[in-house]
């Protein structure tokens, strides 16, 4: 008989990927079973641990810690219950053992993501019990300059992709003098293959709030905006709920933690424009305009939102800050190598056996990541190419997979880490098609302000089509190279300036796929 006496809680994730695979149906089925028990355990809708190939992953709290099961389908539930799911029995084939001992998780260094998936994302008490707001409490006792100093000493660099030192950006805004300043969080996570920002917002939203309040205290900003992509409806819902609770608890509002200093926070929705992940286009969008890239200088740190000094940071940069304040900059800088300090949040995606979030100190190789964690392709076919860093990132052939995950090491091989997206492609991929898509995507998403990007991307699609159709391939390949150079050197921002990177990686490493007759499309 099921008794439920041995445990107190059962966890079913409420997070986009788990939900996309049926977590709500499982929660509803479990709920119906629990309703028939005399002393039912509590059903908790937690976030996801980021082990996506195991989603929906149920966890059961036992005297010996949490036991995980996954991936669970509604059809698996009766068998699992019979095998003693509610007692945390471990002999069912779907049982993964103690959650914390799952190698994929145990082998990570989760500094920023230490709490994701553990509890109900909106539970303030769970956040506090997990060390939450300790960094903010320390920050409240420090001078603005001392906070900035800690972030500078940590070596944290912008996690959105550009890797600009966060401390220097904050210092510029702090030094910009008195008057209204803003903290803007770039939550327009547009790179394909990335979901780390989303996980923070859906599974640990107070972490982002805490990071933004600390940033506000550091530079003297009293207002913050989270610019969130409209493709993330659950994150919107959760952030708004978290902000409401944080205001009630005094972590946001007119008197942050009794400091006498104010910080107000609001979520604003984007509207499906990749370019708005570029910080100046984002600011224009936030001001209610077309998301057009601005010429720099002036830097946003000097003239940002509504012309005022503004810190624009990615979700992951801001989410790294509470740890730095709580444990000290040395603790954060102790991870990593060279000028890449702290942890890299890699996201394994695409045709991958074990997709998910992998937070590690900088320095492991790409191969370790895709083989040891990712386990190769989901299809079981040979891995052919790995795109790192989103749609503007190079496609890497096997000869480059031993490159260490480090900003400088990647730059040396003509690649970039970007926001940490790692997308695997098996040998059925047509790399000529991928090169064409890079140009096509740029044509769709270009803001249109500068000619190389606006016109170059459309011409790029045409030239690639001609090469693949066998029209003067040699001359057109030369033209493509010339066009790529023009876009790299002449574009206003990374959109046009980096779209050539995936294209050139195909011409360099996968030239056979561009050859006439290689086209398998249509």
């Amino acid at each position: 008989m099921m008794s439920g006496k041995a445990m107190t809680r059962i966890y079913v994730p409420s997070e986009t990927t788990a939900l996309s695979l049926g977590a709500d149906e499982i929660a509803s089925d479990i709920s119906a079973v629990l309703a028939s028990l005399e002393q039912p355990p509590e059903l908790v809708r937690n976030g996801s641990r980021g082990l996506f190939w195991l989603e929906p992953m149920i966890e059961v709290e036992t005297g010996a810690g949490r036991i995980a099961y996954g991936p669970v389908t509604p059809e698996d539930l009766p068998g699992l219950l019979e095998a003693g799911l509610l007692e945390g029995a471990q002999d069912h084939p779907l049982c993964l053992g103690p959650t914390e001992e799952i190698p994929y998780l145990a082998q990570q260094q989760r500094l920023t993501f230490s709490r994701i998936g553990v509890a109900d994302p909106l539970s303030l008490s769970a956040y506090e019990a997990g060390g939450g707001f300790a960094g903010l409490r320390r920050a409240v006792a420090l001078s603005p300059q001392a906070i900035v100093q800690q972030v500078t000493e940590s070596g944290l660099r912008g996690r959105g992709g550009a890797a600009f030192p966060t401390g220097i950006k904050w210092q510029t805004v702090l030094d910009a003098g008195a008057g209204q300043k803003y903290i803007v969080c770039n939550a327009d996570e547009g790179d394909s293959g990335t979901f780390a920002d989303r996980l923070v917002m859906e599974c640990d939203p107070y972490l982002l709030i805490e990071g933004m309040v600390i940033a506000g205290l550091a530079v003297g900003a009293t207002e913050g905006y989270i610019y969130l992509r409209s493709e993330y409806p659950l994150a919107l819902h959760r952030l708004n709920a978290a902000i409401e609770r944080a205001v009630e608890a005094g972590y946001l509002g007119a008197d942050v933690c009794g400091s006498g200093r104010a910080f107000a926070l609001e979520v604003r929705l984007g509207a499906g424009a990749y370019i708005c992940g570029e910080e100046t286009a984002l600011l224009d969008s936030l001001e209610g305009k077309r998301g057009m890239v601005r010429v720099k200088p002036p830097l946003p740190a000097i003239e940002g939102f509504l012309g005022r000094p503004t810190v624009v940071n990615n979700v992951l940069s801001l989410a790294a800050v509470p740890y730095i304040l709580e444990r000290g900059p040395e603790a954060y800088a102790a991870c990593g190598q060279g000028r890449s300090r702290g942890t890299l949040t890699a996201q394994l995606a695409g045709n991958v056996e074990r997709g998910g979030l992998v937070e590690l100190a900088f320095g492991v190789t790409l191969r370790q990541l895709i083989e040891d964690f990712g386990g190769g392709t989901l299809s079981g076919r040979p891995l052919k190419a790995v795109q790192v860093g989103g749609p503007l990132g190079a496609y890497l052939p096997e000869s480059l997979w031993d490159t260490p995950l480090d900003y400088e090491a990647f730059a040396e091989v003509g690649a970039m880490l970007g926001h940490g997206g790692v997308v695997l492609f098996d040998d059925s991929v047509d790399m000529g098609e991928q090169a064409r898509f890079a140009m096509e995507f740029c044509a769709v998403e270009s803001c249109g302000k500068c000619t190389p990007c606006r016109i170059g991307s459309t011409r790029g699609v045409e030239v690639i089509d001609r090469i693949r159709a066998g029209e003067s391939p040699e001359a057109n390949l030369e033209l493509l190279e010339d066009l790529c150079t023009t876009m790299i050197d002449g574009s206003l921002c990374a959109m046009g300036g980096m779209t050539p990177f995936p294209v050139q990686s195909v011409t360099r490493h996968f030239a056979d796929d561009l050859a006439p007759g290689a086209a398998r499309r249509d």
Partner: protein
Amino acid sequence: MTFTSPTDARVQQHIAAHRERPGALLPLLHALQDDFGFIPESALAPIAGALSQTVAEVAGVVSFYHHFRRTPPGDAVLQLCRAEACQAAGARALEAHVKQRLGVDYHQTSADGAVTLEPVYCLGNCACGPSVRIGDRVYGRVSPERADQLLDDLQTQVVEVRG
């Protein structure tokens, strides 16, 4: 999904609720589209007036963003992810299947008025693609067969008559 028929009074309500916010235009346009399903042409002039902008400026913002549409959608909007991670997992085949099944291309509505097909560049479900979004719900590992089930559900629902 049920939308309200746009009226001038309703447009004015939304304008009044948002006009004082910094950068009011995007939140206002979202409110209109959430309510009506699209941005009606008749709303542009009153918005421009309230925000001291020209109609051309407002129209320019509406047209810039892929999310905003200027014509009513079908009863449901199906967004299909076209980005690289989903491509690697079979999105190109899914895309071809869905287009054929609905008899439409992107930005078009099936003849029965049930489904509008839109491309989307990343739903953040990249470890479990191909992904589609219907309303606020995201579906992962969508095979052509799974897409057929989802479309069956959408296309057999009672079509509401709009007033």
